[in-house]
């Protein structure tokens, strides 16, 4: 591993300033469960020479819930989100998504900000340099994506452009279904707020140099909203999602008045199935409606050569999530 400078930031402003330092390749680090693995594997063509530790910024791990909604600091650990009473009571799919990540050991260190901003798991992108050298790819500045003609079983079926890696975050999927807003802060007190799915681009995130995710805001849930988060993995625990779905459905007098259907691990960002949501709104939710909405949700899927199976798989998870939300 290459040597690097390590600075413990004590304020967001300091962290942003350090991350924006000209001439340095700085990276923010919190729980380290993603970044340290990436560094050990040597996946970055130009490895960072400065790590800015965010854990030393006081107060950034707060979980606050009131009538105005939920506000979770970027340093809140996934384990704390999973067991937070207000989150479990009012935004249960956020708690479920946090609980669905990896293993207890990792949830005890991994943070919300890190889960949202982690690197993709594409096995070309993450191929360890020590195993005969890195694999060049578009995301690392190379000319092309090796996945397109390679093994794409875990790659995108929606919105891939150039790069076909999928957003690996589970919490992003649940948060997108909850209309969550991500708070970004940058150098010089810059601050902006974006819907969670707008944080991601096909080649990474919209974060500017020096910019940090500092918090997530979630509006209060609709009174009659019901929701479910389902994650399909190859093994029981540990694995990243092959497909995940967060569904949130509001029912008034048996009629759906609002719906969110968000698919995870199918594209570079949480994929909101807007047409399927529209199909659900205005009618009763039953098995037929769920099947039809699932059909609509996957209608626009563009599988690659090796991942056509993800389409029917995602369709059945969407359908199950809608039905699970009804029961939830």
């Amino acid at each position, binding site marked *: *591993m290459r040597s690097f400078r390590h600075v413990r930031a004590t304020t967001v402003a300091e962290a942003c300033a350090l991350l924006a330092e000209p001439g340095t390749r700085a990276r923010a680090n919190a729980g380290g469960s993603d970044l340290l693995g990436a560094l050990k594997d040597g996946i970055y063509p130009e490895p960072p020479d400065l790590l800015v530790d965010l854990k030393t910024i006081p107060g950034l791990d707060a979980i606050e819930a009131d009538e105005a909604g939920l506000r979770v600091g970027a340093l809140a650990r996934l384990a704390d989100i999973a067991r937070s009473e207000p989150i479990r009571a009012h935004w249960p799919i956020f708690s479920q998504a946090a609980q669905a990540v990896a293993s207890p050991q990792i949830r005890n260190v991994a943070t919300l900000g890190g889960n949202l901003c982690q690197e993709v798991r594409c*096995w*070309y992108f993450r*191929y*360890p340099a*020590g*195993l*005969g*050298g890195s*694999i060049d790819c578009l995301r690392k500045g190379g000319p092309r994506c*090796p996945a397109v003609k*390679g*093994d794409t*079983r875990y790659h995108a079926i929606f919105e891939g452009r150039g790069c076909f890696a999928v957003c690996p975050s589970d919490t992003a999927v649940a948060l997108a279904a909850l209309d969550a807003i991500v708070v970004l802060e940058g150098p010089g007190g810059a601050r902006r707020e974006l819907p969670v799915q707008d944080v991601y681009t096909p080649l990474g995130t919209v974060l500017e140099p020096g910019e940090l995710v500092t918090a997530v805001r979630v509006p209060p849930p609709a009174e009659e909203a019901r929701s479910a988060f389902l994650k*399909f993995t*190859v*093994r*029981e*625990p*540990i*694995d990243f999602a*092959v497909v995940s779905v967060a569904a949130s459905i509001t029912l008034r007098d048996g009629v759906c008045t609002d719906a969110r259907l968000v698919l995870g691990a199918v594209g570079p960002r949480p994929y909101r199935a807007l047409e399927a949501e529209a199909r659900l709104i205005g009618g009763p939710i039953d*098995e*037929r409606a769920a*099947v039809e909405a699932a*059909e609509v949700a996957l209608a626009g899927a563009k599988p690659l050569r090796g*991942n*056509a*199976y*993800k*389409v*029917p*798989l995602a*369709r*059945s*998870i969407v*359908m199950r999530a809608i039905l699970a939300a009804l029961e939830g």
Partner: protein
Amino acid sequence: MKREYVNIGGRLPRVDGMVKAAGEAMYTGDLSLPGMLHGKLLRSPHPHARLLKVDTAPALTLEGVRAVITGEDTLKFLAGGIASPGNEPYLAFEKVRFVGDAVAAVAAVDEETAERALALIDVEYELLDPVLDPFAAMAPGSPLVHDDAPGNISFETDLSFGNAQRAFATCDYVRYDEFKTAPIRHGFIEPHAALASWDTSGRLTFWGSKQSPYFTYRNMAKALDIPMSKVRIMQSYLGGGFGGKNEMFNLDFCAALLSMKTRRPVRIVVSQEEVLYAYRQRHPAWIKLQSGFMKDGTLVAVDAEIVAEGGAYKGIGALSLYLMCTFLALPYRVANLRAKGCRVYTNTQPSCAMRGHGVPQVRYAAEVQLDMAARELGLDPLEIRLKNAIQSGDTTGNGFEITSCGLSETLLEARGIVERWRGETPADSEPHLKRGIGVASYGYLSGPRMAGHNTSAALIKVHEDGRVGLVTGSTDCGQGSDTVLSQIAAEVLGIHLDDVQYGGMDSEIVPLDPGVFGSRVTFITGNAVKWAAEDVRAQLAGVAAGLLDAEPDDLEFRDRRVFVRDEPDRGLPFAKLVKSAQYSGTGMTILGRGYWAPEDIDLPRFDTGMGNQSGAYSFGTQVAEVEVDTETGRVKVLRLAVSHDCGQPINEMLVEGQLEGSSIGGIGHTFTETIQRRRGQTMNASFLEYRMPTALDACPVEVTHTDTVDEMGPFGAKESGEGVQVAVMPALVSAVHDAVGVWFKEVPITPEVVVEALGRGAEAAQNADARRGADARRDSRDDGRSRDGESA
């Protein structure tokens, strides 16, 4: 019938349990010596290349680097080889043959410096076309992995008895199928580790992580050209092996040579990633299988063509191929067999032994095909197995002599389990969840006869407080042999298990032993321990006879006492007897010595597969119940059961642990595990992406023992734990067929494979109908035959 014992057969806790649970057990990577250097290996990034230049000078200039070695610094010893000389250099010279092949090694003051030094070694490669597929490798004009192996043929076995081709003409029913298995990993948790210390007397002391320390002992002496007696192999605990730690590896050699060069101790511990991409795998196999039956299910003839991908080197692959062929003759009677096997070189990591050693691949094919035939013939899968089950007293066409055999008993037991499970299994709770039950049987050996040295040995030292120390060269790689061997010594000497201290491996005193492979330890080393304990008992009985005025043969050793049989009061405590012997006028040193190997076992004929391989064969039947999610393709294993014949279990708890571990391992092989490669590179060299089952993927495993004893085995014991791995895959595949009506002829059966095979992509619209309550289970079973065929 089984007999009653004090220390045998019960559920005694393992002797190494406490120190391992407490984290106190020291593995080789935990050891360090004063002045110790750290070693690292430079590995080829190319699957196939000629070495034009390896310039170590830049690395040597780095501060903290003490030595750098390449293939040119070695004596170019070639490791491996059974039936013919080996061809694997510990450091490459002339060519590299897979991504991960070792090119050079560095010793430095710390790991970071060694790592940095690797980057400074200047290697010039001339890239050669790689061969990455065994069939392409065999094609005319294909590049050669080894110049002296035309067609990239590593080894061939051609086993034949009866006349299969002629017999097929007499059969009522003949079927032909093609099967394929994936390359998989051993998955041990302790990575390969070596610590070597060379001194000026010319002695090399080596601590390793070895199933068979004496294999390393021999190869180390040859590779360094020093007398074997100058090699001292030490070892304490071993963190798993499963066949992947039999051989001496490049890190072992490099640690030793670097220590010779630097006169400092050198430790090399490879990373888990290195284990996963640069060491060993199970042979992937392509199996063309034809079997012929009579209407009543009698198996008449089998014809098999097996292609096994051997990877870059020979290793012990001849034995692997031999076992693949010969185990088509077991566990069913068959009068006509032809099995042609071909092990092929490719530019991938070398294949070697792994739990079941070649047999799981072919028996997966044979057991699944047997089930296919049973269904075509309208026979129950258990009935066709009972019809053909081998029996004690049989000799297979290639010469396996079956002494004790409880196979039929395990099948009858399995029938009860299947009936009970069918009764307990509720109707499918959801239309997309299909349940199914499958069975498969196995036979396995209790230690293969190898060419050359084959005898296990044991030494027992009696301490003056009446406790004993026991050593053998058979290491405990997690299977529990330290405990089993200690139990055997305790039983013979009439003392308690607590009274036996099992010692670590040290070639200075521990006698020559082949080590751990092929399920040989309980059966072969167990007998050696029994003999050593009997030697101790005879020496002590001589002394006790004088003290008690009795005949030695009339003495009984029990519960830490020695007494005249039927006169328990005429005796003395074991400890007092020991002291009397040691403290008498002339004094006695009580050391027991035992060595054993089964007599009249043939030397293996690797080319023809003929001859008796083992002194005893174990048997068993696996039952599996699965639930297939027909929409997502995910298969959940609900429960497993093993009815097995291991003779007399020495320790029921350890036997169960072995059977459970082996069964759960089979779940991974069937459903999730495979090595993904791209141009020779391993894409999933981590336990995150190489998906072995975790504890949460495990399921309950019911174990039932049969009432058999083996006359030759120690206290009637024979193999347990490795053999069952053979039957897990076919039982699970059969259960999946029972659930959804599709035969999968290629493993692993991952979700995408199931989804594609069930054609859900085209049928998704029908989900609605299915969900509205139509139970598709019956339908899919009935039309299963029309879907038979390749599994994507």
